[in-house]
């Protein structure tokens, strides 16, 4: 477990954001680079932000080669994270389906299947005859308004106990000397002649030559403290859960055109989500139209769920970049680093983000794996191709 430590007046590295990304970075800094004079600051409890609010889906079947390579590394790390952290993160690789309901979506799924295959990621296009075995609960008839035409089947995809990932990284980072400070809000970033010197917090000034902004939803507000504006817009992402049911749904089901996610947790609840809210906001209120729209689309896929009850709905914040890919690494302010812009796909990248950001901090060079996600790509007009898939499918 992690302990309450005294807040020193300076550290080598300060990580803003005690979620899975920030804690993973602290873990790998200590474990792989021996950098332990590290403080992870969170304004609330660890895992209170995006890490505690996502629908915990893990997959790597993206569109671009650089996207697929990156997320595939993350899945591989997740596969032995339980052993590495001595904490059962309950990574349940039960298969992941992305449904296509239009000919355009089928084309995009095949594009992703082919790119995945060429990157050695197990992911292929399946049609209703095979879908009937993979997920017999789906309504594969012609009856729905948007009949299911095909799906991208990705066996290594699945779900994970997201809080356990946060706690596992926190335990290990703490054990290696990293300081985890909860209820410690960063209120200012001290930048003098182009270099970061430290941060103002609700518990006083903390000096540091390296400050990593690893927040979800608050990337812009923290970056603004360092005088930077970023290419991201914050929007709420909602989810909900049903009453616990005897397990019947094994695979994770995502529908591109209907914008809905469904998976059954290890406790028997159906965990469901959709796309980001229709308008940008920092509010984490739930909305009725979210759960209404979601219910209609879930019943299109599984009509027999009409008497299953929603138990709770919640919301988190996410940041949407123009090319559906994160902002990682160096910024014009020396020492002020980014691991933000994670849209709706941040949690599944936590281990590999921690690992690559730790390497970047320790070696002061950008690892190849995350070079495509550099902030400067926008001014270089070299955006990541994930945008291509987004405009057509989801």
């Amino acid at each position, binding site marked *: 477990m992690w302990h309450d430590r005294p807040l020193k007046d300076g550290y080598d590295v300060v990580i803003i954001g005690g979620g899975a990304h920030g804690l993973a970075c602290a873990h790998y800094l200590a474990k792989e680079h021996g950098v332990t004079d590290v403080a992870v600051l969170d304004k609330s409890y660890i895992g209170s932000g995006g890490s505690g609010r996502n629908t915990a889906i893990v997959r790597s079947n993206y569109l671009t080669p650089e996207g697929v390579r990156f997320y595939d590394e993350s899945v591989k790390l997740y596969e032995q994270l339980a052993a590495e952290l001595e904490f059962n993160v309950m990574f349940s690789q039960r298969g992941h389906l992305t449904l296509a309901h239009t000919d355009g979506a089928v084309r995009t799924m*095949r594009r992703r299947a082919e790119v995945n295959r060429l990157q050695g990621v197990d992911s292929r296009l399946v049609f209703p005859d095979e879908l009937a075995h993979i997920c017999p609960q789906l309504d594969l008839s012609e009856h729905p308004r948007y009949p299911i035409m095909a799906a991208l089947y990705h066996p290594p995809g699945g779900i994970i106990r997201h809080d356990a990932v946060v706690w596992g990284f926190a335990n290990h980072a703490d054990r290696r000397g990293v300081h985890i400070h909860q209820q410690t809000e960063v209120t200012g970033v001290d930048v003098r002649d182009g270099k970061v010197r430290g941060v103002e917090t609700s518990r006083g000034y903390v000096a540091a030559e390296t400050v990593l902004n690893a927040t979800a939803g608050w990337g812009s507000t923290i970056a603004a403290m360092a005088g930077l504006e970023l290419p991201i817009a914050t929007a709420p992402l909602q989810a909900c859960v049903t009453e616990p049911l005897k397990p019947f749904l094994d695979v994770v089901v995502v529908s591109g055109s209907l914008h809905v996610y469904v998976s059954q947790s290890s406790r028997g609840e159906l965990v469901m989500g959709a796309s980001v809210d229709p308008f940008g906001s920092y509010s984490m209120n739930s909305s009725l139209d979210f759960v209404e729209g979601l219910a209609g689309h879930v019943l299109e896929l599984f009509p027999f769920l009409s008497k299953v009850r929603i138990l709770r709905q919640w919301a988190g914040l996410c940041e949407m970049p123009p090319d559906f890919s994160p902002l990682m690494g160096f910024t014009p302010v020396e020492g002020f680093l980014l691991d933000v812009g994670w849209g709706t796909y941040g949690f599944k990248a936590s281990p590999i983000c921690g690992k690559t950001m730790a390497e970047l901090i320790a070696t002061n060079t950008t690892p190849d794996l995350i070079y495509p996600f550099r902030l400067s790509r926008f001014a270089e007009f070299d955006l990541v191709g994930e945008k291509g898939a987004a405009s057509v499918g989801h």
Partner: protein
Amino acid sequence: MSDPTPTRLPERPGEIIDRTRQVSFTFNGEIYPAHPGDTIASALSAAGVRTFSRSFKYHRPRGLLCGAGHCPNCLVQVGDEPNVRSCQRAVEQDMDVNPQNAWPSLDQDVMSLAGLGDRFMPVGFYYKTFMKPSQLWPHYEQALRNAAGLGVVDQGTPWGAYDKQYLHGDVAVIGGGPSGISAALEAAEAGANVLLFDNGPQLGGHLRWRSDSDDTSRKDLLEKVQSARIEVYTDTDVLGWYQDNWLAAVRGDRLFKARAKAIVFATGTIEVPTLFDNNDLPGILLGSAVQRLLNLYGVAPGRRVVVVTANRHGWDLAADLLAAGVELAAIVDERRTRDHPASVDLAAAGVPIYNGSALTGARGRKAVSAAVISEIDDSGNPIGPGRVLSCDTIALSTGWEPALDLLYTAGGKSVYQENRAEMSVDPVPDGLYVAGSANGADLLQARVEDGRVAGRLAAAHLELTEPPPQQELDKLALELSKEERRTSDRISAPDGKKRFVCFCEDVTDVDVDTAIAEGYDSVELLKRYSTISMGPCQGKMCSVNALRLCSRIKGQSVQETGRTTSRPPTTPVYLGVLAGQNMEPVQVSSIHDWHLDRGASMMVAGLWLRPEHYGDATAEVNNVRNRVGLIDVSPLGKFQLTGPGAPDLLERLYINQWRNLRKGRVRYGVMCNDEGVVLDDGVCARVDDDTWYLSTTSTGAGTAFQWIQWWLQSGWGGNVHLTDMTEIYSAFNLAGPHSREVLRKLTKRDLGNKAFPYMRIRRTRVAGVSCRVWRIGFTGELSYEIHVPSSAGLHVWEALMEAGGEFGIAPFGVEAQRVLRLEKGHLIVGQDTDAMSDPLGADMAWAVKLEKPDFLGKRSLERISVDGPHQRLVGFEMTRKHIVPEEGLQIVKPQENGKLNIIGWISSSRFSPTLKKSIGLCWLPSDIGSEPGATFTIYQDGRLEEARVHHGPFFDPGGERLKS
């Protein structure tokens, strides 16, 4: 089943069952009787059944506890419906009710052995085990999953019929108890339109089953409601408050969505169980549950009852039981004094009264057999030896928690009132008011007065009346503060015995202690780690005790410890109700039925349904190439620009030039955004000096209209109007060598090349109907696109089909059109282009007029044109003619190390029946793409297929057929 002895009592005043009639239903395979008005729970209780279900983790037997639909203990399966709260579901004839989560049977549940091993399943058990060896984790996981969940989903359940209704009111009152009714009456009195919601079958709240009030007050309030301007919604649960006073409420299969300008929360209270050893045994009920059984259904909770209390409600209950002839083993009150009026009769009846005492444990294996009580010191800790009282029922009436979840989600801040040991909200957001027992009022008169004041304040907020004078508010506040305390905050310190804090998730006080010691010491971390309050009751039964326990263990105040976030819904709600009536819009053309009659196979195209083919797409292609075909392209986006400002607007929106286009002429155009990405393309015609008529792709029509309106309404709109004509014209494309001969039979206009050349538009009367006819051709054949006023669509289409009979006319669908356009090398925006494609790369470089002063995308296209696009969209042919690579396949370049580098992808690909070989479009690096004949390899099913670059149309490159 233990010997069930019926506990139905003789008729009770105010009971809501019809004793003259009898229904029957099955539970756990056995038939049970019931009266109409009985709930499943009341009928089973009347038959002496005590165990309803098995708990989630330890599979312990669970029976009725709250009687109000809050706790998980009475959840049952009713037919195909899981997780039904049997205390809220009325019995229907032949209902098939079954216990949940019990295997092999409710009585003998093997999994309850898990309960014996609780030493092996402490809090966070799952996280600390099953990590190694990781290969075995999937097998452990399967075992854990099989033990998970409560109810069973029946995959044959029909979707069912549900619907929704919007409601609008000035003041919404949530809760139809005495305070809610008086708030509604006061607001209506002031002229407000009032919506009054109550989840009971009738208004009255606990006046219906609590005997502390004479029945006259209930009847009197109900009469006044009838006459007032109040819309009453009973059997209606308010699920949630959402932004801008948007309330969701459910009644049966209907979801109400209500907006109110002010809201009064008269939501009452939730009775809080107290902690003691074995506190989850069947036969342990909350006092309010006993009073409901007694006074609504005429059912005794058992034969020998111990009442445990810390307020007047316990004594009222004892008096009720006494009056109903139920044997009282004892009444145990934490407080030292016993000044309650009922104490005299109880003592007279020989009922043992233990003051200054508390319940420390219950005994029994499958149900309660005895209560263990002991005296307590001033801070509530037991002193001296316990006393065992044999009984079969324990009624707990030691405290209440105001039901404020809705108000918390509405932004109310929770403040713990030490003197009352209950939560309150302070400040309450503007326009929202809380009243009655939810506001801490306990005596009936105080609840009615508090409601009246809240109703007045709500009406005053809407300036319908004056707010109540200050001294009236002060008088009320004083009255409320003098009320006798009704809630004990006593909580026993964890000492190793098993006291259930959370009934849904089987979390004990020992688990809470352990979790806090392991570092999960904030209420939110404690909740996520122990899963306390994450079950079906969402904290109604456990959050108060968890909070008190957490505060006691950490030695801080309840306010410092804080609450976890409240979230909707307040009551679990069907997906079916949330979905409501199925409303998925469908757009169809004016000749939709003709297509269906003709046997067309329809495809989804945005919101439209369009014919994909009529049985044989290849035959349709050949028929267009050799004879004449007709396709319905009605979904095409069609817009009109009017006014002298049109040319300027077009010059700025499109990458190509328009100013010089003469009347009657047509030109192809491409629209980009400022990133230089292709948004849409289409043809545009100048039909008059100041009237332009442009088309867009069908999928892009809606977005194109909004896009153009955006620029037009933000500075580029000088003297020009944009009108959506998409649905005004149905559009039919007559294509093929005989198309002119067919059309000539239906119009007098000269269709020859001199009078009506290619890329022209003419106002033409076809089959007696005035249409706009374009001489354009996506298929590459001589063709006329006829835009017909939609009301005459069928008339003109049928006339064309009839006129074309002698020429072999046949309809063709989207699939044939895709082959025909591909044979001409035409791209489709959205298929061959995506959100990364610019016109320079997408084979439209000829259209990019950088010399124009300004157009959307110019700055980005200038940058791209400096060193040219990295990738280009070009045609390709396969070395092995018959191989057709699926669209989406990747183009790869083998590396020395054998790896395959992805350098491009196939966007369009078909076998061309006209050319007898496969053709397509693909994205390639510019160096390869710019070289006609250059070869590259496509990765298909694990092997590499060679292909060659091809520029320009595959068929009739000179375009003679179009101009024939």
